[in-house]
């Protein structure tokens, strides 16, 4: 079907959680992920967006088998990995590594950074002790830390540095795919920029495939080749980033874009803020799940589920009215920073590279703790 080289795919992937077991009657279930067909191409950066609770983390965790699907299949390099166990699962995990949102919670506070980075190598039986030590030093350098940081503990590092440690740990076993669940969301803007650059450098250098979950649409626009938009456990639109941001085809995508505050004075948001909260995934609306909030909903939308249809361009959308609607995206030129400010930014950039030499994710600049 899709002739391109797919590295990771899901078919009708579902995950239910039991939220409550009443005394009588069946348990109350939430369908966190409810039938997702995802196709991630080798070497791309694929981003997933959607409101809180729509199932992004659940999906991401299933992709690396941190949690098990209720139904459906996951295929990695054309191999069904849905039910792998034991040694086979461990071997497969080597290729699919996960970066957590909260770098602190994900690092064992009682282990030194060196031990944290060596652990995955040891678990996969990679290298001799000396080789592993050398690899740890190399990894630290690669993410902008120093060799002597190996003997320190996670709490001695700033949030941005801890995220670098998390990234180094994920990289240790030379994975093919890195999956980041909000990897930069907890970081300050300036630190976020450092880590975004680092991820992009690493992706080039190691020919990685990146799957990034983020709720910051500007970050996604900056990083992603393609974007999947999720709503209540389902994908409603998948498209190349430029297309999705400038010519959205699903009304929910349009609503997300119109909600972004644009960092330009006088740029008014389209006044059409989405009404209401995201509905409850325990009892999703009938027909199109977006219909109670959709300004374009018709009778058909209330009764009939729209399928995610793949268009000729490979982009897909799940909306009955996708053909007839012309939706509004962001201006093609984007945020439109003022030309004077751009000059100032250029001056800053020039000074910065003149002073610092190499690229900002290189070790030389990150010596301070």
């Amino acid at each position, binding site marked *: 079907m899709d002739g391109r080289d797919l590295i990771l795919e899901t078919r009708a992937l579902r995950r239910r959680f039991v939220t409550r077991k009443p005394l009588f009657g069946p348990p109350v279930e939430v369908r966190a992920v409810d039938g997702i067909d995802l196709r991630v191409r080798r070497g791309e950066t694929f981003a997933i967006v959607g409101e809180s609770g729509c199932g992004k983390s659940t999906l991401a965790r299933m992709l690396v088998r941190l949690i098990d699907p209720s139904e459906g299949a996951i295929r990695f390099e054309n191999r069904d990995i849905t039910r792998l166990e034991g040694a086979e699962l461990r071997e497969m995990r080597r290729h699919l590594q996960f970066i957590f949102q909260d770098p602190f919670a994900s690092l064992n506070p009682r282990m030194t950074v060196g031990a944290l980075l060596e652990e995955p190598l040891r678990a996969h039986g990679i290298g001799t002790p000396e080789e592993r030590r050398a690899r740890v030093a190399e990894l630290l350098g690669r993410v902008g830390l120093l060799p002597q940081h190996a003997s320190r503990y996670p709490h001695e590092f700033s949030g941005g540095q801890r995220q670098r440690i998390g990234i180094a740990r994920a990289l240790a076993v030379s994975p093919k795919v890195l999956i980041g669940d909000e990897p930069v969301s907890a970081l300050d803007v300036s*630190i976020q920029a450092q880590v975004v650059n680092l991820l992009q450098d690493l992706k080039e250098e190691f020919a990685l495939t990146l799957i990034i979950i983020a709720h910051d649409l500007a970050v996604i626009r900056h990083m992603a080749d393609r974007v999947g938009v999720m709503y209540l456990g389902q994908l409603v639109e998948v498209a190349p980033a430029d297309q999705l941001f400038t010519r959205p085809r699903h009304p929910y995508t349009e609503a*997300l874009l119109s909600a972004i*505050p644009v960092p330009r*004075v006088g740029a008014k948001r389209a006044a059409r803020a989405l009404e209401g909260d995201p509905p409850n995934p325990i009892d999703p609306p009938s027909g199109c799940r977006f219909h109670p909030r959709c300004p374009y909903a018709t009778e058909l939308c209330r009764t009939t589920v729209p399928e995610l249809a793949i268009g000729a361009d490979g982009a897909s959308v799940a909306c009955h009215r996708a053909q007839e609607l012309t939706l509004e995206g962001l201006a093609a030129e*984007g945020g439109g920073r003022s030309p004077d400010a751009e000059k100032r930014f250029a001056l800053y950039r020039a*000074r910065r590279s003149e002073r610092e030499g190499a690229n900002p994710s290189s070790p030389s600049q990150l010596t301070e703790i």
Partner: protein
Amino acid sequence: MTEGAMTEAGPLLEISDLSIRFGGAPSNLVDGLSLRLSAGETLCIVGESGCGKSLTALALMGLLPMPPARRMSGRAVFEGRDLFELSLDQLKDIRGDRMAMIFQEPMTSLNPAIKVGEQIAESVRRHRGVSRAEARAHALEMLCRVRIPAPEKRLDEYPHQMSGGMRQRAMIAMALANDPALLIADEPTTALDVTVQAQVLDLMRALQQESGAALIMITHDLGVVAEMADTVAVMYAGRIVETGPVARIFEDPQHPYTIGLMSSMPDLGPRGGRLVTIPGVVPPADAMPEGCRFASRCPFAAPACAEAPPLRDLAEGHSVACWLAPLEAVEPGAAEEVA
């Protein structure tokens, strides 16, 4: 006639030379901060975390734990009275009445054990001598004003029964219940989805228009700044490094920190190359550089920066604390060269 009325022509709030430090720390975490705010004005304070934004807000509200915090200097004259000279009782009379604060986490100000309607009504009764029934009616009106759906029902709900966006609105309803002249909002939408954020921002703007309240909004989102601010104050390591009308700050950013902060944010345009970054992190209190506090991260730093630059006026209302400002005057043609 209130004292506020006598100072109508003057600012609503004037902070001068506010310095705060913690315990035996060797440097001030808020250092010589001065700000003024007119009635109805919206001031956005931006800066990385740890720059002292929340400390400043909490100090104004009298909510800083002292000790360990110590106010080393400063006045904050609000409606004619220095907030720092007030007794706790006087402060409590002003808080929730003439000035109110909302937080990133609504449960900071909502009591989990009391129904939302009762909390709002209680605040109304405390500051206005109205009956229970009147206070409840007012609480209902507030829930309507913040557009909480089915307000009659929500009145008798506990905070945990509401979604995050709704709790945020309930907190706003409580803060605005007594028509304060000043609302301080510390990252009020940071934890919210972009769609809910848009609703809350629209709401805050509408309510502000109705009531004429002044707003101090702390945020790190420049999009939010562009949308909400009349005036911007950029804060770095406890000091204001640049301040001015919002259009000037976006079109003519002058302080290297402002420039770094703005250019490190991905804009919403077609994919560019690498993001520009500010190297390193905000220095901790025990490693604060002497002189210009940004010097350890500044690509323009020069020997002169070992002395602290004063906040100087570059144009009407636009001031910058950098020896090099205005940048082009120092590096003539430099911008054209690299642009």
